[in-house]
């Protein structure tokens, strides 16, 4: 079995084994996550019926858990395309082990993220007013609003990521086509577009993939920049700062990488993909994690320096409030998760310990969620007018919808692992010859 064909056949069997008849544990996981999803949808339905008041958001904190979730999920969405596109352009070979997973994560995270702007709308049934389409009212949207940029950025990101993911999958779908029969085969026949792997197909395919990677890379950066501008474009002390774009991009990559680790560590074990996803691959990821953690920490410091150096009363008051005010525990917990714990990765032993990495990635996920929460909520809670100061406590509805978003994400992700090849077979073939 030393022939290339033999190696490839083995590879295909290994990867496609994950698509075999699912085990009980899969069904259990699916049931739990879809139940969470259903709970979230139920909460949302109740919120639509009663009004946004069922959530805890209030004056002056008009954005709370929902926007936190939105930024969190957009952040999660970042690593997928980053790992795929940027590492592709850098010819970083270790990307092949999890680019498919990461891209799938991107798609599902963007889908999840995309729901939150709708959920947080007071009248979500009118969400289509956010799109510039010709209508009888002769009205357009306000292109000066960062929220419209969001609409464009997130939908572009979704579209391009979907194309990127799909294109990368076409040759693999053609492989699956070979292994399936009946209706299932029909579906794969349609979605593999009749791929044959001729030399011109490969030539165009290679160029397309490269262009998409080249387009996606600035897109990745722009999307989270735009998300950060939702805040930076405002006048709210604590939001209105120029470092937000790079700060948020780094934060997104940080949280996205953590989420990749969170997802791939168990997946690797469950689907026995140890041959293809090695500890060294994780070590590379851990280094990204460490690097971005330090950028994020640097940003935290710069924020404070900017505020205090500027001498701007409102900024100074805000940053004192952020670290010593109503949300101080969340703030210090965030620092622990995002700045202190990742420093342990400097120790080689730890960054090669998958269990440790997995636990650390969970902390980072929590920390990054808290970061967004702290930025959003504490900035709004005390801004200019002392009379209007207030605090915000999330309600069960918000918790339910957040839970539902995790449910949705994992539901889609579980279905993905079952119905699509979780590794890029073709690319592994390419490097393993």
């Amino acid at each position, binding site marked *: 079995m030393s022939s290339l064909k033999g190696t490839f056949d083995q590879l295909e069997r290994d990867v496609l084994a994950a698509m075999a008849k699912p085990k009980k544990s899969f069904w259990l996981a699916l049931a739990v996550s879809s139940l969470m999803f259903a709970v979230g949808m139920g909460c949302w339905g109740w919120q639509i019926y009663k009004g946004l008041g069922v959530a805890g958001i209030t004056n002056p904190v008009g954005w709370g858990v929902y926007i936190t979730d939105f930024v969190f999920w957009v952040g999660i969405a970042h690593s997928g395309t980053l790992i795929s596109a940027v590492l592709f352009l850098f010819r970083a070979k270790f990307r092949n082990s999890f680019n498919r997973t990461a891209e799938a994560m991107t798609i599902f995270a963007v889908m999840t993220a995309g729901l939150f702007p709708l959920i947080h709308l007071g009248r979500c049934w009118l969400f289509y007013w956010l799109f510039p389409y010709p209508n009888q009212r002769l009205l357009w949207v306000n292109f000066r609003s960062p929220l419209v940029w969001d609409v464009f950025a997130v939908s572009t990101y979704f579209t391009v990521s979907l194309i990127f993911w799909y294109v990368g999958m076409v040759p693999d779908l053609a492989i699956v086509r070979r292994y399936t029969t009946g209706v299932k085969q029909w579906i794969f026949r349609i979605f593999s577009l009749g791929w044959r792997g001729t030399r011109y197909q490969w030539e165009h395919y290679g160029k397309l993939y490269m262009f998409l990677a080249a387009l996606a890379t600035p897109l990745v950066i722009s999307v989270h920049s735009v998300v950060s501008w939702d805040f930076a474009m405002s006048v709210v002390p604590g939001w209105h700062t120029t470092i937000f774009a790079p700060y948020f991009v780094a934060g997104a990559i940080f949280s996205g990488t953590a989420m990749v680790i969170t997802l791939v560590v168990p997946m690797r074990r469950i689907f026995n993909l140890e041959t293809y996803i090695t500890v060294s691959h994780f070590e590379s990821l851990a280094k990204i994690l460490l690097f971005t953690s330090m950028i994020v920490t640097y940003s935290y410091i710069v924020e404070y320096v900017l505020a205090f150096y500027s001498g701007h009363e409102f900024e100074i008051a805000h940053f004192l409030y952020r670290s010593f005010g109503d949300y101080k525990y969340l703030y210090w917990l965030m620092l622990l998760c995002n700045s202190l714990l990742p420093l342990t990765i400097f120790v080689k032993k730890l960054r090669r310990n998958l269990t440790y990495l997995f636990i650390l990635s969970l902390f980072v996920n929590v920390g990054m969620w808290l970061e967004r929460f702290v930025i959003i909520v504490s900035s709004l809670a005390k801004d200019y007018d002392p009379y209007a100061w207030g605090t915000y406590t999330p309600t069960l509805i918000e918790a339910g919808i957040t839970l539902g978003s995790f449910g949705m994400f994992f539901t889609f992700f579980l279905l993905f692992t079952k119905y699509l090849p979780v590794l890029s077979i073709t690319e592994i*073939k390419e490097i393993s010859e």
Partner: protein
Amino acid sequence: MSKQWMFDEKADFLAKLRELVDGGVDPHDLETMTPFPVHEADHILHTRTSRLRFFTLAGTLTGLIAGFAFTIFTVMDWPLITGGKPLISLPPFLVIAFELTILLGGILSFVGFLALARLPSVKNVLQPPKEYGNRFVIQQRGEE
């Protein structure tokens, strides 16, 4: 009638290919099917560089121009002042133009790819093509 060779190893496949081209077979008459892109074969066969870049360029340029044109058109169509900013405020419009550049660039690249690679191939969807597994295949079109 066409001829067909199948190989389990890439090296054998490349050797045969080189042999055929050196033997005077017109590369246009040779079609290969491989489990992954084999760039050496492209060198041997002098495969044309893909014209996909023109699609991408067209898409990005369209997106860029459309982004500015559309945003400027809408503010002129119903001029509404917000935040004391001028009607045509280019910095925010740049964001839209940028996103549209990427979006149309991406979409047109994909469309271009489908067109150039003749996908989706209806024939191959309705009737699955003959599968060669993970073999490297050379087909030579014979003279009719």
